[in-house]
Protein backbone atom coordinates (compact mmCIF):
# COMPACT_ATOMS: atom_id res chain seq x y z
CA UNK A 1 0.00 0.00 0.00
CA UNK A 2 1.15 3.48 -0.81
CA UNK A 3 -0.11 6.86 0.31
CA UNK A 4 -1.24 9.52 -2.12
CA UNK A 5 0.64 12.82 -1.81
CA UNK A 6 -1.28 14.69 -4.49
CA UNK A 7 -3.77 14.01 -7.25
CA UNK A 8 -4.23 17.04 -9.47
CA UNK A 9 -6.24 17.62 -12.63
CA UNK A 10 -3.69 19.17 -14.99
CA UNK A 11 -6.02 19.41 -17.99
CA UNK A 12 -9.66 18.35 -18.45
CA UNK A 13 -9.88 14.68 -17.37
CA UNK A 14 -6.08 14.38 -17.18
CA UNK A 15 -4.46 13.97 -13.76
CA UNK A 16 -1.05 13.64 -12.21
CA UNK A 17 -1.06 11.46 -9.10
CA UNK A 18 1.95 11.38 -6.79
CA UNK A 19 2.44 8.54 -4.40
CA UNK A 20 4.87 8.53 -1.47
CA UNK A 21 7.82 6.18 -1.23
CA UNK A 22 10.95 5.12 -2.95
CA UNK A 23 9.85 3.21 -5.99
CA UNK A 24 12.09 1.44 -8.47
CA UNK A 25 11.68 1.72 -12.20
CA UNK A 26 13.22 2.89 -15.43
CA UNK A 27 11.88 4.93 -18.35
CA UNK A 28 9.08 3.16 -20.20
CA UNK A 29 8.30 0.73 -17.40
CA UNK A 30 4.90 0.66 -15.78
CA UNK A 31 3.12 -0.15 -12.53
CA UNK A 32 -0.12 -2.04 -11.95
CA UNK A 33 -2.38 0.15 -9.86
CA UNK A 34 -5.41 -0.88 -7.87
CA UNK A 35 -7.63 1.15 -5.67
CA UNK A 36 -8.49 -0.58 -2.42
CA UNK A 37 -10.91 1.54 -0.47
CA UNK A 38 -9.35 0.74 2.87
CA UNK A 39 -6.73 -1.64 4.08
CA UNK A 40 -8.31 -4.93 4.96
CA UNK A 41 -11.65 -4.42 3.21
CA UNK A 42 -11.69 -6.62 0.14
CA UNK A 43 -13.59 -4.82 -2.60
CA UNK A 44 -13.98 -6.92 -5.72
CA UNK A 45 -15.29 -4.31 -8.15
CA UNK A 46 -13.36 -3.02 -10.00
CA UNK A 47 -11.35 -6.20 -9.80
CA UNK A 48 -8.24 -5.86 -11.92
CA UNK A 49 -5.30 -3.50 -11.59
CA UNK A 50 -4.73 -0.83 -14.23
CA UNK A 51 -1.36 -0.45 -15.96
CA UNK A 52 0.09 3.06 -15.83
CA UNK A 53 3.51 4.09 -17.09
CA UNK A 54 5.91 5.76 -14.72
CA UNK A 55 5.65 9.44 -15.53
CA UNK A 56 8.09 10.82 -13.01
CA UNK A 57 10.14 9.70 -10.07
CA UNK A 58 11.91 11.34 -7.16
CA UNK A 59 13.68 10.21 -4.03
CA UNK A 60 10.46 9.98 -2.11
CA UNK A 61 7.69 9.74 -4.66
CA UNK A 62 6.56 8.28 -7.94
CA UNK A 63 4.12 10.03 -10.28
CA UNK A 64 1.68 8.84 -12.91
CA UNK A 65 0.00 10.91 -15.59
CA UNK A 66 -3.39 9.49 -16.51
CA UNK A 67 -6.55 10.22 -18.36
CA UNK A 68 -9.97 9.29 -17.00
CA UNK A 69 -11.35 6.89 -19.59
CA UNK A 70 -13.38 4.44 -17.56
CA UNK A 71 -14.30 3.26 -14.11
CA UNK A 72 -10.84 2.48 -12.81
CA UNK A 73 -9.34 5.81 -13.75
CA UNK A 74 -12.47 7.65 -12.61
CA UNK A 75 -12.10 6.01 -9.21
CA UNK A 76 -8.44 6.95 -9.17
CA UNK A 77 -9.35 10.57 -9.89
CA UNK A 78 -11.79 10.54 -6.97
CA UNK A 79 -9.09 9.73 -4.42
CA UNK A 80 -7.70 12.37 -2.15
CA UNK A 81 -4.41 13.04 -0.42
CA UNK A 82 -3.73 10.56 2.35
CA UNK A 83 -5.74 7.72 0.82
CA UNK A 84 -4.03 4.52 -0.18
CA UNK A 85 -3.30 2.70 -3.41
CA UNK A 86 -2.02 -0.76 -4.19
CA UNK A 87 1.01 -0.41 -6.50
CA UNK A 88 2.90 -3.33 -8.02
CA UNK A 89 5.87 -2.93 -10.26
CA UNK A 90 7.95 -1.83 -11.98
CA UNK A 91 7.08 -4.13 -14.87
CA UNK A 92 8.00 -4.35 -18.53
CA UNK A 93 11.20 -3.80 -20.45
CA UNK A 94 11.13 0.00 -20.76
CA UNK A 95 12.86 2.14 -23.35
CA UNK A 96 16.32 1.03 -24.43
CA UNK A 97 19.48 2.74 -23.29
CA UNK A 98 21.26 3.59 -26.54
CA UNK A 99 24.75 4.88 -27.12
CA UNK A 100 25.16 8.59 -26.33
CA UNK A 101 26.40 9.10 -29.87
CA UNK A 102 22.98 8.29 -31.33
CA UNK A 103 20.69 11.17 -32.20
CA UNK A 104 17.44 10.52 -30.37
CA UNK A 105 13.93 11.90 -30.73
CA UNK A 106 11.03 11.23 -28.39
CA UNK A 107 7.57 11.42 -29.96
CA UNK A 108 4.35 11.36 -27.94
CA UNK A 109 0.72 11.63 -28.93
CA UNK A 110 -1.85 12.49 -26.24
CA UNK A 111 -1.46 10.30 -23.18
CA UNK A 112 1.56 8.87 -24.97
CA UNK A 113 3.59 11.68 -23.43
CA UNK A 114 3.27 9.94 -20.02
CA UNK A 115 6.33 7.66 -20.25
CA UNK A 116 8.43 10.16 -22.21
CA UNK A 117 9.26 12.46 -19.31
CA UNK A 118 11.50 9.86 -17.72
CA UNK A 119 13.03 9.18 -21.13
CA UNK A 120 13.66 12.90 -21.59
CA UNK A 121 15.40 12.95 -18.23
CA UNK A 122 17.69 10.22 -19.52
CA UNK A 123 18.16 11.58 -23.04
CA UNK A 124 18.83 15.20 -22.15
CA UNK A 125 19.91 16.01 -25.69
CA UNK A 126 16.92 14.42 -27.36
CA UNK A 127 14.44 16.37 -29.44
CA UNK A 128 10.92 16.06 -28.13
CA UNK A 129 7.74 16.09 -30.19
CA UNK A 130 4.42 16.09 -28.42
CA UNK A 131 0.98 16.36 -30.01
CA UNK A 132 -2.41 16.95 -28.48
CA UNK A 133 -5.87 16.74 -30.05
CA UNK A 134 -7.33 19.17 -27.57
CA UNK A 135 -5.66 20.60 -24.49
CA UNK A 136 -1.97 20.14 -23.89
CA UNK A 137 -0.57 18.91 -20.59
CA UNK A 138 2.75 18.00 -18.99
CA UNK A 139 4.56 20.37 -21.34
CA UNK A 140 6.10 22.45 -18.54
CA UNK A 141 7.51 19.33 -16.96
CA UNK A 142 9.43 18.69 -20.15
CA UNK A 143 10.50 22.29 -20.45
CA UNK A 144 11.89 22.27 -16.94
CA UNK A 145 14.31 19.48 -17.63
CA UNK A 146 15.42 20.49 -21.12
CA UNK A 147 18.75 22.16 -21.64
CA UNK A 148 17.49 24.13 -24.62
CA UNK A 149 13.92 25.25 -25.19
CA UNK A 150 14.40 24.60 -28.90
CA UNK A 151 14.38 20.89 -28.19
CA UNK A 152 10.60 20.68 -27.72
CA UNK A 153 8.03 20.79 -30.52
CA UNK A 154 4.31 20.82 -29.94
CA UNK A 155 1.24 20.44 -32.09
CA UNK A 156 -2.24 21.05 -30.80
CA UNK A 157 -5.70 20.58 -32.30
CA UNK A 158 -7.42 17.95 -34.34
CA UNK A 159 -6.16 19.17 -37.69
CA UNK A 160 -2.46 18.88 -36.97
CA UNK A 161 -0.55 15.71 -36.45
CA UNK A 162 2.65 15.39 -34.52
CA UNK A 163 4.02 12.91 -37.06
CA UNK A 164 3.91 15.61 -39.75
CA UNK A 165 6.50 17.74 -38.00
CA UNK A 166 8.98 14.96 -37.25
CA UNK A 167 11.69 14.49 -39.84
CA UNK A 168 12.95 11.01 -39.03
CA UNK A 169 16.04 11.48 -41.20
CA UNK A 170 17.45 13.69 -38.46
CA UNK A 171 17.47 10.85 -35.94
CA UNK A 172 19.07 7.46 -35.68
CA UNK A 173 16.65 6.41 -32.93
CA UNK A 174 13.08 7.48 -32.24
CA UNK A 175 11.14 6.36 -29.18
CA UNK A 176 7.43 6.92 -29.46
CA UNK A 177 4.26 6.39 -27.50
CA UNK A 178 0.69 7.15 -28.50
CA UNK A 179 -2.32 5.76 -30.35
CA UNK A 180 -1.60 2.78 -32.61
CA UNK A 181 -2.55 4.84 -35.67
CA UNK A 182 0.00 7.51 -34.87
CA UNK A 183 2.74 4.97 -34.26
CA UNK A 184 2.03 3.27 -37.54
CA UNK A 185 2.00 6.60 -39.36
CA UNK A 186 5.43 7.31 -37.96
CA UNK A 187 6.71 3.91 -39.05
CA UNK A 188 5.29 4.46 -42.51
CA UNK A 189 6.92 7.88 -42.74
CA UNK A 190 10.30 6.42 -41.83
CA UNK A 191 9.88 3.78 -44.52
CA UNK A 192 8.68 6.12 -47.21
CA UNK A 193 11.54 8.54 -46.56
CA UNK A 194 13.98 5.62 -46.61
CA UNK A 195 15.25 6.87 -43.30
CA UNK A 196 17.46 4.45 -41.40
CA UNK A 197 15.87 5.43 -38.12
CA UNK A 198 15.29 2.71 -35.56
CA UNK A 199 11.78 3.21 -34.18
CA UNK A 200 10.87 1.97 -30.72
CA UNK A 201 7.22 2.09 -29.80
CA UNK A 202 5.51 1.64 -26.47
CA UNK A 203 2.37 -0.46 -26.95
CA UNK A 204 -0.83 -0.99 -24.98
CA UNK A 205 -2.97 -4.04 -24.45
CA UNK A 206 -5.49 -5.01 -21.79
CA UNK A 207 -3.79 -6.82 -18.93
CA UNK A 208 -4.74 -9.03 -16.03
CA UNK A 209 -1.53 -9.94 -14.18
CA UNK A 210 1.05 -7.48 -15.53
CA UNK A 211 3.91 -9.89 -14.87
CA UNK A 212 3.79 -12.35 -17.76
CA UNK A 213 1.72 -15.17 -16.28
CA UNK A 214 -1.76 -14.88 -17.78
CA UNK A 215 -1.05 -14.34 -21.50
CA UNK A 216 -3.98 -11.99 -21.88
CA UNK A 217 -1.67 -9.26 -23.22
CA UNK A 218 -0.03 -11.29 -25.99
CA UNK A 219 0.57 -9.61 -29.30
CA UNK A 220 1.85 -11.03 -32.52
CA UNK A 221 5.42 -10.22 -33.49
CA UNK A 222 7.71 -11.48 -36.21
CA UNK A 223 9.24 -13.75 -33.55
CA UNK A 224 5.91 -15.23 -32.53
CA UNK A 225 3.78 -14.05 -29.64
CA UNK A 226 5.15 -11.60 -27.13
CA UNK A 227 3.70 -10.37 -23.86
CA UNK A 228 3.26 -6.61 -23.76
CA UNK A 229 3.78 -6.70 -19.99
CA UNK A 230 7.01 -8.71 -20.09
CA UNK A 231 8.78 -8.59 -23.47
CA UNK A 232 7.13 -5.16 -23.96
CA UNK A 233 5.63 -2.66 -23.68
CA UNK A 234 8.47 -1.34 -25.87
CA UNK A 235 9.00 -3.07 -29.20
CA UNK A 236 10.68 -2.05 -32.42
CA UNK A 237 8.30 -1.04 -35.16
CA UNK A 238 9.82 -3.83 -37.27
CA UNK A 239 8.70 -6.64 -35.01
CA UNK A 240 5.04 -5.78 -34.38
CA UNK A 241 1.93 -6.65 -36.37
CA UNK A 242 0.06 -3.37 -36.79
CA UNK A 243 -3.26 -5.08 -37.36
CA UNK A 244 -3.02 -6.90 -34.11
CA UNK A 245 -1.99 -3.75 -32.24
CA UNK A 246 -5.19 -1.99 -33.18
CA UNK A 247 -7.17 -4.46 -31.02
CA UNK A 248 -7.32 -3.62 -27.36
Amino acid at each position, binding site marked *: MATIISNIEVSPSVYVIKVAGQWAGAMGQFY*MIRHRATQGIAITDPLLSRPLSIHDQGDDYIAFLYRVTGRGTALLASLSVGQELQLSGPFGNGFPVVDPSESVALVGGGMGVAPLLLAAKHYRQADIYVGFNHHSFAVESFEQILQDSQQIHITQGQHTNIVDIVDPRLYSVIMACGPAGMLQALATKIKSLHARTLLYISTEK*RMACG*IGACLTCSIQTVNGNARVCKEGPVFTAEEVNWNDLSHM
Partner: protein
Amino acid sequence: MTSLICNLAGVALRNPIIMASGTFGFGREYGELYDLSILGGIASKGLTLHPRSGNTGCRVQETPSGMMNSVGLENPGITSFLENELDHMVASGAVVIANLGGAHLEEYVTGAAQISESCDLRQRQGQKAVDLLELNISCPNVKEGGIQFGVDTEVARQIVREVRQVTRIPLIVKLSPNAQDIVAMAYMCEQEGADAVSLVNTFSAMKIDIAQRRSAFQNTYAGLSGPAIKPIALRMVHQVSQALSIPVIGMGGISSVEDMIEYIMAGAEAVQIGTYNFVNLHAGEELVSGLTAWMEKEKVQSLDEIRGIV
Protein backbone atom coordinates in the same frame (compact mmCIF):
# COMPACT_ATOMS: atom_id res chain seq x y z
CA MET B 1 0.48 -28.75 16.01
CA THR B 2 -1.74 -27.78 13.13
CA SER B 3 -1.15 -29.78 9.99
CA LEU B 4 -2.15 -28.54 6.58
CA ILE B 5 -1.02 -31.61 4.69
CA CYS B 6 -3.51 -32.94 2.22
CA ASN B 7 -3.55 -35.98 0.05
CA LEU B 8 -4.54 -36.31 -3.58
CA ALA B 9 -4.41 -39.84 -4.95
CA GLY B 10 -1.42 -40.72 -2.82
CA VAL B 11 0.40 -37.49 -3.56
CA ALA B 12 0.95 -35.48 -0.39
CA LEU B 13 0.64 -31.74 -0.67
CA ARG B 14 2.23 -29.45 1.92
CA ASN B 15 -1.10 -27.66 2.12
CA PRO B 16 -4.34 -27.65 0.10
CA ILE B 17 -3.49 -24.49 -1.83
CA ILE B 18 -2.83 -25.04 -5.54
CA MET B 19 -2.29 -22.32 -8.13
CA ALA B 20 -4.82 -22.78 -10.93
CA SER B 21 -3.95 -23.53 -14.51
CA GLY B 22 -3.55 -20.57 -16.82
CA THR B 23 -3.19 -18.07 -14.01
CA PHE B 24 0.31 -18.96 -12.85
CA GLY B 25 2.17 -19.71 -16.09
CA PHE B 26 4.78 -22.33 -15.19
CA GLY B 27 5.53 -20.53 -11.97
CA ARG B 28 8.48 -18.53 -13.28
CA GLU B 29 7.00 -15.07 -12.87
CA TYR B 30 5.51 -15.59 -9.43
CA GLY B 31 8.72 -17.37 -8.42
CA GLU B 32 10.44 -14.01 -8.75
CA LEU B 33 8.00 -12.56 -6.22
CA TYR B 34 7.95 -15.24 -3.53
CA ASP B 35 9.21 -18.68 -2.61
CA LEU B 36 6.98 -21.19 -4.41
CA SER B 37 7.97 -24.08 -2.17
CA ILE B 38 5.42 -22.87 0.39
CA LEU B 39 2.60 -23.75 -2.02
CA GLY B 40 0.67 -26.99 -2.02
CA GLY B 41 0.86 -27.31 -5.77
CA ILE B 42 1.10 -25.53 -9.09
CA ALA B 43 -1.01 -26.43 -12.11
CA SER B 44 0.78 -25.61 -15.35
CA LYS B 45 -0.69 -23.47 -18.08
CA GLY B 46 -2.96 -25.70 -20.19
CA LEU B 47 -0.76 -27.78 -22.51
CA THR B 48 -1.57 -29.12 -25.93
CA LEU B 49 0.24 -31.61 -28.11
CA HIS B 50 1.46 -28.88 -30.43
CA PRO B 51 2.31 -25.29 -29.60
CA ARG B 52 -0.64 -22.92 -29.91
CA SER B 53 -0.54 -19.18 -30.41
CA GLY B 54 -3.98 -18.69 -28.88
CA ASN B 55 -6.78 -16.37 -29.87
CA THR B 56 -6.46 -13.09 -31.70
CA GLY B 57 -8.19 -9.86 -30.69
CA CYS B 58 -9.13 -8.86 -27.19
CA ARG B 59 -8.26 -11.50 -24.61
CA VAL B 60 -9.52 -10.02 -21.37
CA GLN B 61 -12.43 -7.92 -20.15
CA GLU B 62 -13.30 -6.93 -16.65
CA THR B 63 -16.85 -7.70 -15.44
CA PRO B 64 -18.55 -6.91 -12.12
CA SER B 65 -16.33 -8.71 -9.58
CA GLY B 66 -15.02 -10.94 -12.32
CA MET B 67 -13.11 -11.15 -15.55
CA MET B 68 -13.55 -12.87 -18.87
CA ASN B 69 -10.66 -14.37 -20.76
CA SER B 70 -10.19 -15.67 -24.22
CA VAL B 71 -6.53 -16.64 -24.19
CA GLY B 72 -7.33 -19.68 -26.28
CA LEU B 73 -4.80 -22.02 -24.74
CA GLU B 74 -1.69 -20.22 -25.94
CA ASN B 75 1.09 -22.58 -24.85
CA PRO B 76 4.47 -23.85 -26.02
CA GLY B 77 3.28 -27.43 -26.54
CA ILE B 78 4.06 -30.54 -24.55
CA THR B 79 7.52 -31.15 -25.98
CA SER B 80 8.71 -27.70 -25.08
CA PHE B 81 7.06 -27.98 -21.65
CA LEU B 82 8.93 -31.18 -20.93
CA GLU B 83 12.20 -29.73 -22.14
CA ASN B 84 12.04 -26.18 -20.87
CA GLU B 85 9.55 -25.88 -18.04
CA LEU B 86 9.23 -29.12 -16.13
CA ASP B 87 12.64 -28.97 -14.45
CA HIS B 88 11.90 -25.52 -13.26
CA MET B 89 8.49 -26.49 -11.92
CA VAL B 90 9.93 -29.53 -10.15
CA ALA B 91 12.62 -27.33 -8.62
CA SER B 92 9.98 -25.05 -7.15
CA GLY B 93 9.34 -27.66 -4.51
CA ALA B 94 5.56 -27.53 -4.90
CA VAL B 95 3.61 -30.50 -6.24
CA VAL B 96 3.63 -30.31 -10.04
CA ILE B 97 0.35 -30.65 -11.90
CA ALA B 98 0.43 -30.77 -15.70
CA ASN B 99 -2.81 -29.41 -17.13
CA LEU B 100 -3.70 -31.03 -20.44
CA GLY B 101 -6.02 -29.64 -23.10
CA GLY B 102 -6.88 -30.75 -26.59
CA ALA B 103 -8.98 -29.98 -29.61
CA HIS B 104 -9.96 -33.57 -30.34
CA LEU B 105 -9.80 -36.99 -28.75
CA GLU B 106 -6.53 -38.14 -30.30
CA GLU B 107 -4.80 -34.96 -29.26
CA TYR B 108 -5.69 -35.60 -25.63
CA VAL B 109 -4.64 -39.20 -25.74
CA THR B 110 -1.37 -38.64 -27.58
CA GLY B 111 -0.57 -35.73 -25.30
CA ALA B 112 -1.25 -37.72 -22.15
CA ALA B 113 0.87 -40.58 -23.47
CA GLN B 114 3.75 -38.26 -24.27
CA ILE B 115 3.76 -36.68 -20.82
CA SER B 116 3.41 -40.06 -19.24
CA GLU B 117 6.29 -41.70 -21.13
CA SER B 118 8.58 -38.82 -20.54
CA CYS B 119 7.80 -38.86 -16.85
CA ASP B 120 8.35 -42.62 -16.63
CA LEU B 121 11.75 -42.08 -18.18
CA ARG B 122 12.57 -39.27 -15.77
CA GLN B 123 11.62 -41.46 -12.85
CA ARG B 124 13.75 -44.32 -14.07
CA GLN B 125 16.58 -41.79 -14.13
CA GLY B 126 15.76 -40.83 -10.56
CA GLN B 127 14.36 -37.43 -11.50
CA LYS B 128 11.17 -36.03 -10.11
CA ALA B 129 8.47 -35.57 -12.70
CA VAL B 130 4.85 -34.52 -13.05
CA ASP B 131 3.02 -35.49 -9.86
CA LEU B 132 -0.52 -35.20 -11.14
CA LEU B 133 -2.13 -34.86 -14.53
CA GLU B 134 -5.12 -32.51 -14.72
CA LEU B 135 -7.30 -33.22 -17.72
CA ASN B 136 -9.11 -30.10 -18.86
CA ILE B 137 -12.20 -31.33 -20.68
CA SER B 138 -13.60 -27.83 -21.21
CA CYS B 139 -11.80 -27.29 -24.49
CA PRO B 140 -13.89 -26.78 -27.60
CA ASN B 141 -13.91 -29.87 -29.77
CA VAL B 142 -12.75 -28.58 -33.13
CA LYS B 143 -13.72 -31.78 -34.91
CA GLU B 144 -17.29 -31.50 -33.67
CA GLY B 145 -17.64 -27.86 -34.59
CA GLY B 146 -16.50 -26.25 -31.40
CA ILE B 147 -18.88 -27.84 -28.90
CA GLN B 148 -17.19 -28.19 -25.55
CA PHE B 149 -16.13 -31.71 -24.66
CA GLY B 150 -17.06 -31.11 -21.05
CA VAL B 151 -20.78 -30.49 -21.62
CA ASP B 152 -22.07 -33.96 -22.41
CA THR B 153 -21.17 -36.76 -20.01
CA GLU B 154 -20.91 -39.49 -22.64
CA VAL B 155 -18.70 -37.43 -24.93
CA ALA B 156 -16.42 -36.67 -22.01
CA ARG B 157 -16.41 -40.30 -20.91
CA GLN B 158 -14.52 -41.30 -24.01
CA ILE B 159 -11.69 -38.89 -23.30
CA VAL B 160 -11.40 -39.81 -19.64
CA ARG B 161 -11.44 -43.52 -20.47
CA GLU B 162 -8.79 -43.34 -23.16
CA VAL B 163 -6.53 -40.97 -21.28
CA ARG B 164 -6.78 -43.18 -18.21
CA GLN B 165 -5.53 -46.10 -20.29
CA VAL B 166 -2.35 -44.40 -21.43
CA THR B 167 -1.07 -43.02 -18.14
CA ARG B 168 -0.32 -44.15 -14.63
CA ILE B 169 0.15 -40.60 -13.42
CA PRO B 170 -2.61 -39.87 -10.91
CA LEU B 171 -5.40 -38.30 -12.93
CA ILE B 172 -7.50 -35.29 -12.00
CA VAL B 173 -10.34 -34.45 -14.37
CA LYS B 174 -11.15 -30.75 -14.43
CA LEU B 175 -14.85 -30.17 -14.93
CA SER B 176 -16.59 -27.39 -16.76
CA PRO B 177 -19.42 -25.55 -15.00
CA ASN B 178 -21.11 -25.56 -18.40
CA ALA B 179 -21.67 -29.31 -18.07
CA GLN B 180 -25.30 -30.26 -18.52
CA ASP B 181 -25.20 -32.30 -15.33
CA ILE B 182 -22.06 -31.68 -13.32
CA VAL B 183 -22.80 -34.40 -10.78
CA ALA B 184 -23.28 -37.02 -13.49
CA MET B 185 -20.11 -35.77 -15.17
CA ALA B 186 -18.12 -36.07 -11.96
CA TYR B 187 -19.53 -39.48 -11.21
CA MET B 188 -18.55 -40.65 -14.68
CA CYS B 189 -14.96 -39.56 -13.95
CA GLU B 190 -14.92 -41.61 -10.78
CA GLN B 191 -16.31 -44.61 -12.67
CA GLU B 192 -13.68 -44.27 -15.36
CA GLY B 193 -10.86 -44.37 -12.88
CA ALA B 194 -10.03 -40.72 -12.30
CA ASP B 195 -8.23 -40.19 -9.02
CA ALA B 196 -9.81 -36.80 -8.36
CA VAL B 197 -11.93 -34.14 -9.99
CA SER B 198 -11.33 -30.41 -9.94
CA LEU B 199 -13.97 -27.78 -10.56
CA VAL B 200 -14.84 -25.28 -11.83
CA ASN B 201 -13.29 -24.09 -15.02
CA THR B 202 -14.61 -20.79 -16.40
CA PHE B 203 -18.27 -20.16 -17.22
CA SER B 204 -19.16 -19.53 -20.83
CA ALA B 205 -20.11 -15.86 -20.91
CA MET B 206 -20.51 -12.87 -23.19
CA LYS B 207 -19.71 -9.20 -23.29
CA ILE B 208 -20.89 -6.92 -26.06
CA ASP B 209 -18.96 -3.85 -27.14
CA ILE B 210 -21.97 -1.66 -27.77
CA ALA B 211 -19.95 1.07 -29.47
CA GLN B 212 -18.61 -1.42 -32.03
CA ARG B 213 -21.88 -3.37 -32.06
CA ARG B 214 -20.10 -6.67 -31.81
CA SER B 215 -18.92 -9.11 -29.20
CA ALA B 216 -15.94 -7.86 -27.24
CA PHE B 217 -14.23 -11.15 -28.10
CA GLN B 218 -13.55 -12.54 -31.56
CA ASN B 219 -14.76 -15.99 -30.42
CA THR B 220 -18.12 -14.46 -29.40
CA TYR B 221 -18.09 -16.10 -25.96
CA ALA B 222 -15.30 -16.16 -23.39
CA GLY B 223 -14.70 -17.64 -19.95
CA LEU B 224 -15.85 -15.93 -16.77
CA SER B 225 -13.83 -16.32 -13.56
CA GLY B 226 -13.29 -14.50 -10.29
CA PRO B 227 -15.34 -13.67 -7.17
CA ALA B 228 -18.55 -13.22 -9.19
CA ILE B 229 -18.78 -16.96 -9.83
CA LYS B 230 -17.93 -18.15 -6.34
CA PRO B 231 -21.48 -18.76 -5.09
CA ILE B 232 -22.31 -20.94 -8.11
CA ALA B 233 -18.99 -22.77 -8.10
CA LEU B 234 -19.29 -23.47 -4.37
CA ARG B 235 -22.73 -24.98 -4.91
CA MET B 236 -21.31 -27.25 -7.61
CA VAL B 237 -18.39 -28.33 -5.42
CA HIS B 238 -20.82 -29.14 -2.63
CA GLN B 239 -23.05 -31.18 -4.93
CA VAL B 240 -20.13 -33.08 -6.42
CA SER B 241 -18.49 -33.71 -3.05
CA GLN B 242 -21.70 -35.25 -1.77
CA ALA B 243 -21.84 -37.63 -4.72
CA LEU B 244 -18.22 -38.79 -5.02
CA SER B 245 -15.81 -40.81 -2.97
CA ILE B 246 -12.67 -39.60 -4.76
CA PRO B 247 -11.23 -36.22 -3.67
CA VAL B 248 -12.67 -33.02 -5.04
CA ILE B 249 -10.54 -29.93 -5.68
CA GLY B 250 -12.63 -26.80 -5.42
CA MET B 251 -12.12 -23.47 -7.13
CA GLY B 252 -13.89 -20.44 -8.47
CA GLY B 253 -13.41 -16.93 -7.17
CA ILE B 254 -11.36 -17.76 -4.10
CA SER B 255 -9.95 -14.47 -2.79
CA SER B 256 -9.58 -14.97 0.95
CA VAL B 257 -8.94 -17.51 3.66
CA GLU B 258 -12.67 -17.51 4.41
CA ASP B 259 -13.41 -18.45 0.80
CA MET B 260 -11.04 -21.42 1.06
CA ILE B 261 -12.69 -22.55 4.28
CA GLU B 262 -16.09 -22.42 2.59
CA TYR B 263 -14.84 -24.76 -0.15
CA ILE B 264 -13.29 -27.11 2.39
CA MET B 265 -16.46 -27.13 4.49
CA ALA B 266 -18.35 -27.90 1.28
CA GLY B 267 -16.18 -30.99 0.92
CA ALA B 268 -13.09 -29.99 -1.05
CA GLU B 269 -9.87 -31.86 -0.30
CA ALA B 270 -7.85 -29.01 -1.83
CA VAL B 271 -8.51 -25.68 -3.51
CA GLN B 272 -7.15 -23.79 -6.48
CA ILE B 273 -6.52 -20.08 -6.74
CA GLY B 274 -6.96 -18.51 -10.17
CA THR B 275 -7.97 -14.94 -10.86
CA TYR B 276 -6.99 -13.77 -7.39
CA ASN B 277 -3.35 -14.24 -8.41
CA PHE B 278 -3.85 -11.26 -10.73
CA VAL B 279 -5.60 -9.12 -8.17
CA ASN B 280 -2.98 -9.78 -5.53
CA LEU B 281 0.36 -10.92 -6.90
CA HIS B 282 1.25 -12.32 -3.48
CA ALA B 283 -2.01 -14.28 -3.19
CA GLY B 284 -0.23 -17.62 -2.79
CA GLU B 285 1.92 -16.65 0.15
CA GLU B 286 -0.77 -14.61 1.86
CA LEU B 287 -3.32 -17.40 1.64
CA VAL B 288 -0.89 -20.03 2.92
CA SER B 289 0.04 -17.99 5.97
CA GLY B 290 -3.55 -16.84 6.40
CA LEU B 291 -4.83 -20.41 6.45
CA THR B 292 -2.32 -21.40 9.11
CA ALA B 293 -3.28 -18.38 11.19
CA TRP B 294 -6.97 -19.15 10.81
CA MET B 295 -6.51 -22.75 11.94
CA GLU B 296 -4.57 -21.65 14.97
CA LYS B 297 -7.13 -19.04 15.89
CA GLU B 298 -10.04 -21.45 15.43
CA LYS B 299 -8.12 -24.27 17.11
CA VAL B 300 -8.57 -26.50 14.08
CA GLN B 301 -5.66 -28.94 14.08
CA SER B 302 -6.42 -30.65 10.83
CA LEU B 303 -8.68 -29.60 8.00
CA ASP B 304 -10.29 -33.04 8.25
CA GLU B 305 -12.17 -31.65 11.26
CA ILE B 306 -14.11 -29.27 9.06
CA ARG B 307 -13.96 -30.88 5.62
CA GLY B 308 -17.40 -31.61 4.25
CA ILE B 309 -19.01 -30.49 7.50
CA VAL B 310 -21.81 -28.67 5.66
